[in-house]
């Protein structure tokens, strides 16, 4: 909402003259009408800008086809000499004797356009005769402004004649304050801000209804509780809009069009009641207000043909629909430059119906903006009457006697509230007397009965329905700045949950390992999954699709973090960062076959069973951890060459995470997209598979445009954390010497190190302290298809020093077990 300060002052004459626009805007902001901006139109125009009288002119055709006018203009003594001023003018819409605005050399027009005497078309033009657009008064550039004959004398300051300079406050109006989408509302708040009297511009007498302005039948009184109208006959469609009115409309951000249209807009801005004017001669039969029928169409006055929904509220006549109620009129009955007889409609519409129609047809308008938030149902006839008055005042004709008024404003429910509630809720010291006074100041009727107040809100405050709504009204007038700052009584929380603490630890662990955390969007398309090489039955292809995705390429929620990570690897590589280690923790969305989520009432809590049903209707959303290693994991330097990241780094990343939260994971070889089938590890806790790690399939690297041999891992972090045990049993450890035994075992290539290690552990007996693989060898010494695994075994007894022969026997038992289970041969 934009309001010229001059208009606010006209509505609230009692506003103190010394209040600046900034002060006014600040006060209104503190009351809840938030100042978005203050503009000062016309303040970039500086004089001399004076009234001139055209004494004579010559029309001079030019070679370029134009005809210019060489004018002699009397500007009084404004030019210092009193002599007529010679001015070249391109416009022709004036005659000798007309008064025109003249800017003289030294003046400045909007856009920092400084005027000087200049040679043009063979003359020295000492100034300029101005158009509306040149003065910032509007778009009109068809001709110059011709001032009224009584505008003043040559040499008078045009700033006194035209409404050039003003100040405009632009407000951001919250949805609950629809009344402030009018000067009536802004004025009321301004009066409230300064505690001055306010004369409601809607408080004017209206004639009694005889239903004779036009025949109207309202078939849907729910959608249209009030429909009023007046008629004007003999209107002059060529009558101009007065400058002051056009200027107020323009400063409000709308475009002056014609007197008839401008008056309806002006009254809407003034009172907040949208009004529609019909060309009465184009109406056929009585007006009927009803819902649309299937298949009905309407060409709205923006020229668009609209197919109507059966929910749309319509204004119709014998010809069919002639207006989309409260949203936009139809083309056939539109006010035109030949309209002389006008039917003025002002109605009260159901906000929800207007809201739905506006959204359905994507037709936000100044009218629908007001109707959908709620207008004052008691003023439609006041507004229609005001329009009729302004039309006839400036456009001639007469207001017909007939007054149409169908329906009645809905009753307003009163609210019972304890007078102490505003103080109790706001924490401010607000006596009951202040509560009552403030409620009356916003227009409520208050009946006191002890400490109980019965409050009836004014008809323009449809938003006031609950006691707490009244608390806000009282509190904002007392002033939010008076709310004291007090910490609430101490809470007794138990700190972060274990899961929350462990998640922090996971992030810190990976950052400590050199991984950089990234945050990706969760949107995905099948192309991303194709690029991962997932086969048709892969469960990760079961996506939660979005009804209105931001991009048709990514119409679903992802089931895996890898696409986001790999795209980020590619983005970094594209920017020259080829060696990266990235991680991300985020939820993925795993749809499950379930019905719709229930919608409950809101007047009581749903039952536990209902809430359970609600949760079951939602997809699974486990927290995943993904990581990717690309390029060198350790860089080259004076110490030697760099070390490329491999499958082992990705796997180690997961292992570090598991260690950091105290979970022991096991690893098995597997083949699983999008990993290299020979370099993919399945990560499990017990029998539960948590995820995978390894080198990516070369085709995946190619598809994502990332460096070859990029490694990645993804695990279900939620489940990993479930296995994180909070209780650790303190170990008992022996202080007797350790016995070390190294063994090198030759096995088939296909035997995994994990299996050999498990076999050693199984055979080594109770004094085995640790097993560590310290070397893997393949080559001629062990033969084709074989590898040698070297393990360091450590034995220790709790109660004595093991002898060499004891340790040797344990080692031999371990080796025998490996031989038996894995076919291992000691080298």
């Amino acid at each position, binding site marked *: 909402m934009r309001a010229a300060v001059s208009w606010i002052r006209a509505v609230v004459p009692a506003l103190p003259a010394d209040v600046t626009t900034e002060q006014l805007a600040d006060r209104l902001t503190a009351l*809840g009408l938030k100042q978005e901006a203050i503009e000062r139109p016309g303040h970039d125009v500086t004089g001399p800008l004076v009234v001139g009288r055209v004494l004579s002119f010559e029309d001079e055709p030019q070679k370029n086809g134009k005809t210019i006018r060489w004018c002699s203009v009397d500007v009084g003594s404004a030019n210092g000499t009193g002599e007529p001023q010679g001015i070249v003018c391109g416009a022709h819409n004036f005659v000798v004797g007309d008064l025109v605005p003249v800017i003289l050399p030294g003046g400045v027009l909007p856009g920092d356009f400084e005027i000087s005497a200049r040679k043009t078309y063979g003359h020295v033009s000492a100034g300029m005769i101005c158009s509306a657009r040149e003065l910032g008064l509007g778009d009109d550039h068809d001709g110059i402004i011709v001032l009224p004959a009584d505008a003043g004398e040559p040499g008078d300051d045009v700033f006194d004649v035209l409404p050039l300079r003003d100040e405009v406050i632009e407000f951001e109006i919250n*949805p609950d304050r629809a009344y402030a989408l009018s000067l009536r509302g802004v004025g009321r708040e301004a009066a409230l801000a300064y505690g001055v009297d306010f004369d409601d511009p809607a408080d004017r007498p209206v004639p009694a209804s005889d239903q004779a302005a036009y025949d109207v039948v309202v078939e849907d009184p729910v959608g249209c509780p009030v429909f009023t109208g007046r008629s004007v006959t003999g209107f002059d469609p060529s009558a101009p809009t007065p400058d002051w009115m056009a200027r107020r409309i323009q400063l409000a951000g709308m475009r002056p069009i014609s007197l008839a249209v401008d008056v309806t807009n002006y009254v809407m801005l003034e009172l907040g009641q949208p009004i529609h004017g019909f060309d009465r001669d184009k109406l056929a039969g009585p007006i009927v207000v009803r819902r649309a029928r299937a298949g009905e169409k309407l060409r709205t006055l923006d020229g668009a043909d609209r197919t109507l929904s059966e929910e749309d509220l319509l204004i119709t006549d014998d010809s069919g629909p002639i207006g989309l109620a409260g949203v936009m009129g139809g083309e056939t009955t539109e006010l035109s430059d030949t309209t002389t007889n006008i039917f003025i409609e002002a109605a009260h519409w159901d906000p929800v119906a207007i*809201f739905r129609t506006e*959204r359905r047809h994507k037709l936000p308008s100044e009218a629908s903006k007001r109707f959908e938030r709620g207008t004052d149902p008691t003023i439609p006839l006041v507004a229609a009457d005001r329009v009729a008055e302004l039309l006839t005042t400036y456009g001639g004709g007469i207001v017909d006697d007939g007054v149409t008024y169908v329906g009645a404003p809905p009753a307003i429910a009163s609210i019972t509230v304890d007078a102490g509630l505003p103080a109790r*809720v*706001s*924490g*401010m010291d607000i006596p009951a007397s202040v509560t009552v006074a403030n409620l009356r100041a916003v227009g409520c009727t208050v009946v006191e009965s002890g400490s109980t107040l019965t409050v009836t809100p004014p008809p323009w405050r449809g938003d006031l329905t*609950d*006691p*707490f709504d009244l*608390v*806000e009204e009282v*509190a904002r007038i007392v002033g*939010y*700045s008076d*709310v*004291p*700052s*007090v*910490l*609430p009584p*101490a*809470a007794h*929380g138990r*700190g*972060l*949950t274990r899961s929350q603490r462990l998640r922090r630890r996971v992030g810190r662990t990976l*950052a400590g*390992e*050199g991984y*950089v*955390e*990234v*945050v*990706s*969007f969760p949107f995905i398309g099948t192309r991303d999954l194709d690029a991962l090489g997932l086969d048709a039955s892969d469960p990760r292809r079961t996506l939660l*699709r979005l*009804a209105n995705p*931001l991009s048709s390429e990514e119409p679903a929620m992802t089931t895996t973090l890898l696409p986001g990570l790999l795209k*980020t690897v590619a983005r*970094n590589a594209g920017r020259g*960062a080829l*060696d990266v*280690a990235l991680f991300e923790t*985020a*939820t993925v*969305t795993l749809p499950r076959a379930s019905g*719709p*989520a*229930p*919608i409950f009432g*809101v*007047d009581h*809590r749903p039952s536990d069973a209902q809430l359970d049903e609600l949760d079951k*209707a939602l*997809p699974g959303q486990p927290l995943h951890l993904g990581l990717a290693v690309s390029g060198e994991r350790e*860089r080259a330097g*004076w*110490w030697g060459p760099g070390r490329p990241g491999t499958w082992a780094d990705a796997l180690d990343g997961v292992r570090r995470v598991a260690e950091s939260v105290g979970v022991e994971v096991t690893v098995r070889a597997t083949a699983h997209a999008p990993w290299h089938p020979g370099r993919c590890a399945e990560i499990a806790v017990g029998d539960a598979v948590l995820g995978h790690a390894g080198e990516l399939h070369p085709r995946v690297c190619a598809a994502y445009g990332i460096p070859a041999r990029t490694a990645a891992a993804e695990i279900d972090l939620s489940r990993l954390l479930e296995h994180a045990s909070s209780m650790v049993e303190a170990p008992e450890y022996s202080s007797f010497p350790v016995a070390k035994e190294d063994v090198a075992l030759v096995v088939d290539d296909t035997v995994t190190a994990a299996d050999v290690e498990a076999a050693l552990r199984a055979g080594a007996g109770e004094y085995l302290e640790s097993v560590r693989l310290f070397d893997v060898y393949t080559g001629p010494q062990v033969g084709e298809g074989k590898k040698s695994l070297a393990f360091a075994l450590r034995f220790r007894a709790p109660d004595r020093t093991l002898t060499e022969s004891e340790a040797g026997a344990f080692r031999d038992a371990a080796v025998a077990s490996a031989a038996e289970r894995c076919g291992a041969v000691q080298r």
Partner: protein
Amino acid sequence: MSGPNSSYDPVEVTPLRADQVEEMREQAFAAIAAAGDLAELKQVRLDHAGDRSPLALANREIGALPPQARKEAGQRVGQARGAVQQAIAARQAELEVQAEERMLVDETVDVTLPTSRRPAGSRHPLTTLAEDIADVFVALGWEVAEGPVVEAEWLNFDALNLGPDHPARTMQDTIWAEPAENHVVLRTHTSPVQARTMLTRTPPIHVVCPGRVYRTDPYDATHSPMFHQVEGLVVDEGITMAHLKGTLDHFAAAMFGDGITTRFRPSYFPFTEPSAEVDLICWICRGVNSEDCRTCRGEGWVEWGGCGVVNPRVLTACGVDTDRYTGFAFGMGIDRTLMMRYAVSDLRDLFEGDVRFSSAFGTEL
């Protein structure tokens, strides 16, 4: 260097003369002093203190002397041998120190060489800032509540007094799961977590809810379809707007420094009544001579978030006794707070995953 006298014949000489013993000692001293390193000193020890050294041989002669001469010669030779041993030990210590010093000099490296073989990792500032925020409230005794991102329409809207015809529910603002008749949305705020908390706990409730939210916003320097919010909720007996103000002042000072307080402006949110927008005193200019301040654009205040007294309709839908309890709630953008605190000019920097961005913030803020 002086070596043993190869023509020396102990039988022919009379080594026990004082001047001869003195000379042997002087020779030994000279040799010790001349030893330039530990290897040379080792040879000197053999030559002048070893079994075949002149003094050792002289010592053997003592037994052949007449008894009265024996004592005198014994003393003379013994003293000389002791002195030589001491001199060798002293020189040994000296040379060891020198050798160590030389070794340490030889082993000098250029400590300005780069040492990091692996680039440092980092966490995302959105993560660490969310943790910092949570910690402010955990320190007040609050708990951190969480909930699903893909959420039921009823919890995202209805329970929060956003009725069926609220503008925010349209496809123009909210991302819906398909089909829309399933009533599942990507949560548009973290408020459903508040609702879930009230539905599952009994007051007093003190929770803070950081999390990821989605809207159909364009993706540009100041908007994103995905962003992060933190909301707070307190429900207890006697809770007022004053407690809300106190909490937000505390939060503002924790985030932006001592002396940074908040201002309330009346506003509208369906889930709170009364409602307010929260502004912060500009932490750059502190509201003083703001004209040239780019952070607050001359306002002296910076918009931070929204807040209010929990609408009793919300309490009712969530099963909280409105006769007994009141509550307050607030919410602000973590992304926006991050951008304000660290002068991030383009929101997209948070989601591009460029390692240079996160790396600048390290592991903790």
